[in-house]
């Protein structure tokens, strides 16, 4: 998800960021989407027992560059000003109900990367069933379990 900073603490190297928005209108970079109730359960499971380490997206065995302190979903639509890593307002963004957000604490190097504007967002990977959509929008019955990232 794009780097739309909602809040940060420079002293503590903390950021509050959107992780993922559900629904067909919030289709992601891969043309995939998640229904709100599905995302909610997945975030609950992540918060309960998932890995909290944050790595660089394309590092296969990389060291942690940050920690996901908490992840949560808000069941309401939220419209807030959003900022880039340097703290400059990018505009106002509407987050649909059940958008997932997270508080992150970063290493000094990663936080400098964020503040410079070179970090482009956060991504979550995992496993899911893929259900291809027909042209009319309804899902096909064929299911495929594969690795993916949001």
């Amino acid at each position, binding site marked *: 998800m794009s780097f739309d900073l909602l809040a940060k603490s420079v002293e503590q190297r903390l950021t509050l960021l959107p992780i993922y928005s559900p629904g*067909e209108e919030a289709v992601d970079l*891969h043309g995939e989407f998640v229904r709100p109730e599905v*995302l909610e359960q997945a975030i609950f499971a992540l918060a309960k027992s998932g890995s909290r380490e944050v790595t660089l997206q394309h590092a296969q065995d990389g060291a942690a560059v*940050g920690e996901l302190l908490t992840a949560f979903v808000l069941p309401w639509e939220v419209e807030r000003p959003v900022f880039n890593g340097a703290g400059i307002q990018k505009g106002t963004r509407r987050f649909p109900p059940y958008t997932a957000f997270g508080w992150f604490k970063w290493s000094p190097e990663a936080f400098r990367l964020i503040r410079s504007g070179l*970090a*482009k*967002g*956060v991504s*979550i990977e995992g496993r899911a069933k*893929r259900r291809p959509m027909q042209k009319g929008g309804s899902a096909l019955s064929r299911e495929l379990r594969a690795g993916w990232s949001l």
Partner: protein
Amino acid sequence: MGFLDEVIGLRKEERRPHTELEEIELTRVSLVDHAASGYDDAFLLLKSKDAQRLQKRASLGGAFRGLASGAVQRIDLG
């Protein structure tokens, strides 16, 4: 579609929902360390000392190896 578009995904204005994800199990959170929105940012990232330091501490995936090797420079961005 260029190399990075194939690796990273379509640009936002070209996105169309075509796949629904179900029964999700989240396993890994990551900081997006390249530009999903354009090539210029990816080159800027390669020049960043902090980015290079972070990359040194990690074994890189295929996409970034491609960038680091200079392969991107030979690609037609159009």
